[in-house]
């Protein structure tokens, strides 16, 4: 397992010489972004390799390359030492590579047996599916992994843990040699996690190579034999679990050269303008309280699924909290709909631009004025001159270059679409602005522009809430950071306590 990029000494275990599956200096680029640069990874039979890294480190991309969903731009994939190509997911499945995803990719309306055997069902006479053989095989496999599930049950009637077991049964049904588990325990209870560990041990005993992706250090140290750490799409370290400590892993994950420079802000926060007291939701978050001052940037850090976006959506009136109170400028604010929130001076710039941000079929100016139409219209009639004026003012402030404000937003690049969305919200003249992953998926140059702009917003006295999963961004931009874990506030840190290690520890719960 010795690699050129290795920063640590290679383990001297007694593992077999030839990996079942190996990636050799695999590179994957998307337009404008390098998702993976020359990463190497080896999986050995009967061994569990933990893949560790921050959000956006390239873990999912690697999984997609190994399962034939993405094609690498460089490097090669090897099975038993000989190079292979996976043009489709089917090809990866044929050589025994299978993945169990974070969100199970199964079919709710089909039976358990149909899910297990979809695409490779046993055939009977006339090439028709042999249903009884399918049921029998499913039952055997499920019994084999200790799952007491009736294969005739519809998948939608199962709980999340049992769905995972079905996914695992599916992996076994195609005689998998490599099993990839992408955060398999994220949605499981402690008891279910224990059962999963036993299953992993069993798969190991059967000689399967396992890639285990997890944020939870306790489980990595419990079941993994070796580790591989990715950072910013590159391999930064690997070795045997026995040779590493938690602290060292955290350091590998987050430690980076400071390539990004953040605007130097004068931190002069003003009066308290906004407070949230005891926000609760029956299933998504609980007990969220914090305050916010004028000119302050408050960072929200957490792992994906920690409940940050869910809480913000409730705050913005998209969903209803079961209890909790919001105060703006010392007055209680009741927010039942996004329109209420905008009216009270709260805006939310969502993470998913495509789905929740811009309306691509409408021109730029109409996108910008959409939440401000009450100001650019009179008695329900639009005043186009006012609309253009407002749109021009805010798109110019963001340095948005487009030939005309009449251009449909669908014709703009991703970065410019982002600017349209931000312009739209600034035009409402908000008091509090919530930015959900404001720089996700945009290039370094545009990132700097967004950071500059965020600093300017704060300087103008706006209170900014920034959700971000990028530690440098959180630390570089925030005056204060709230770390969320499993729907609750894990900690609130400020000043000297704002270190990468603190954030990761609290976010992962170690």
């Amino acid at each position, binding site marked *: 397992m010795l690699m050129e990029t290795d920063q640590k000494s290679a383990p001297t275990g007694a593992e077999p010489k030839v990996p079942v599956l190996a990636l050799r200096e695999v590179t994957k680029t998307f*337009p*404008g972004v390098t998702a993976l640069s020359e990463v190497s990874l080896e999986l050995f039979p009967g061994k569990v390799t933990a893949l560790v890294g921050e959000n956006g480190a390239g873990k999912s991309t690697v999984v997609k390359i190994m399962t034939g969903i993405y094609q690498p731009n460089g490097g090669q994939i090897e099975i038993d030492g000989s190079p292979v190509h996976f043009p489709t997911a089917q090809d990866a499945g044929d050589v025994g590579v299978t993945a169990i995803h974070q969100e199970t990719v199964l079919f709710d309306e089909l039976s358990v047996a149909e899910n297990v055997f979809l695409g490779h069902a046993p055939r009977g006479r006339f090439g028709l599916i042999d249903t009884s053989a399918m049921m029998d095989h499913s039952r055997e496999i499920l019994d084999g992994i200790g799952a007491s599930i009736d294969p005739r049950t519809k998948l939608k009637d199962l709980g999340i843990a049992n769905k995972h077991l079905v996914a695992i049964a599916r992996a076994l049904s195609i005689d998998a040699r490599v099993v990839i588990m992408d955060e398999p325990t994220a949605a499981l209870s402690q008891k279910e996690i224990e059962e999963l560990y036993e299953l992993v041990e069993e798969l190991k005993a059967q000689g399967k190579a396992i890639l285990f992706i997890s944020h939870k250090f306790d489980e990595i140290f419990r079941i993994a034999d070796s580790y591989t750490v990715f950072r910013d799409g590159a391999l930064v370290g690997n070795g045997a679990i026995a040779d590493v400590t938690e602290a060292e892993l955290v350091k590998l994950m987050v430690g980076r050269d400071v390539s990004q420079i953040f605007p130097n802000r004068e931190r002069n926060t003003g009066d308290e303008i906004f407070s949230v007291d005891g926000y609760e939701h029956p299933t998504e978050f609980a007990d969220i309280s914090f305050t916010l001052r004028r000119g302050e940037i408050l960072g929200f850090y957490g792992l994906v699924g920690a409940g940050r976006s869910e809480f913000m959506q409730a705050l*913005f009136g*998209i969903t209803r909290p079961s209890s909790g109170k919001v105060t703006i400028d010392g007055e209680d604010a009741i927010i039942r*709909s*996004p*329109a209420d*929130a*905008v*009216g009270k001076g709260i805006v*939310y710039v*969502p993470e*998913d631009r495509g*789905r*929740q*941000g*811009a*309306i*691509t*079929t*409408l*021109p730029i100016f*109409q996108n910008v004025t*959409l*939440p401000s*139409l*009450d100001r650019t*219209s009179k008695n*329900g*009639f*639009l005043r*186009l001159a006012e609309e253009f004026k407002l749109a021009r003012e805010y798109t110019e402030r963001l340095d948005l*270059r*487009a*030939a005309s404000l*009449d*251009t*449909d937003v*669908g*014709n*703009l*690049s*991703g970065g*410019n679409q982002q600017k349209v969305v931000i312009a*739209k919200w600034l035009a409402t003249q908000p008091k509090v602005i919530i930015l959900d992953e404001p720089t996700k998926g945009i290039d370094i140059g545009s990132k700097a522009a967004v950071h500059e702009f965020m600093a300017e917003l704060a300087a103008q006295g706006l209170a900014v809430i920034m959700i971000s999963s990028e530690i440098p961004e959180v630390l570089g931009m925030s005056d204060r950071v709230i770390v969320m874990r499993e729907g609750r506030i894990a900690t609130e840190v400020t000043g000297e306590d704002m270190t990468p290690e603190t954030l990761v520890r609290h976010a992962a719960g170690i």
Partner: protein
Amino acid sequence: MPKQIFTSREFLLTGAIVLLLAIIATRFPAFIAPSNLANVFNDTAPLILLAIGQMIVILTRCIDLSVAANLALTGMVVSMINVAVPGLPVPIIIFVSVAFGALLGMVNGILVWKLEIPPIVVTLGTMTIFRGTIFLLSEGKWINAHEFSEPFKAFPRTELLGLPLMSWIAIAAVILFSVVMSRTTLGRAFYAAGGNPHAATYAGIDVGRTQFWAFTISGALAGLTGYLWVSRFAVAFVDLAGGFELSVVAACVIGGVAIMGGIGSVVGAMLGALFLGIISNALPVVNISPFWQLAISGSAIIIAVALNAQANREKGRIILKRAENAT
């Protein structure tokens, strides 16, 4: 200046109509005489009115299959009112037809908005219910020409500046709804709700309520058309305008309304309706069998959808900086 895409799409459709007229003229020159074209327009007026309403509904990612049944039910109701109270002035009849049609549209809208039932299911159901209601009201009997009062029948034929009022109403509706769609906050909400419902929600637009208003407008126009239809043809019965909802949807699709919502215009819907109206008026006079008429209308629909799909596919993102600055 605004919306190059829409104007170009409408420009193309206008070109297609001119081409169609030119082809017809080679076989039957009298067809393109102004008086005949005015007749064709007048014949197509009901389709134009319904297509405008349908266009707004489709814009919000819904569909209204109940328009023809609404037309027939409202037509029957105002006919029965006319039979019962022959002296009731026509403006009141028109008001009743618009209000009653709007009410039926609101039923669709409420079901889609509050119960979140898929629009195709809602309107398929109400379509059948409306037809059934006509049967219950009329006991399956027809109301014939001699039973209507003269003013009731005369209204759509009354000429003003050389055109029947029927045509003027269609023209007025095109202008009115062009203004509504491009110059009011409601019109903007229709485009936004259909273009990206999630983004519209974040911008403070209630997508369900917007859809409700779309159905209400569609219903009101169907009701109005119901009166115009029964008075023009001087007959009301259960199966009046049976299957007409499909022509209405077809007119929208030919007129460049995206079936996935968010894209469309009043003028486009009108041109789509005129295209179908010209085909159905011209083919009989140039001795083409009704079978071919259906085949040609059907082909026009498929070609229009294919062209729209093509246009949307080509509209990729501009990634290169220089390309973006050049647009």
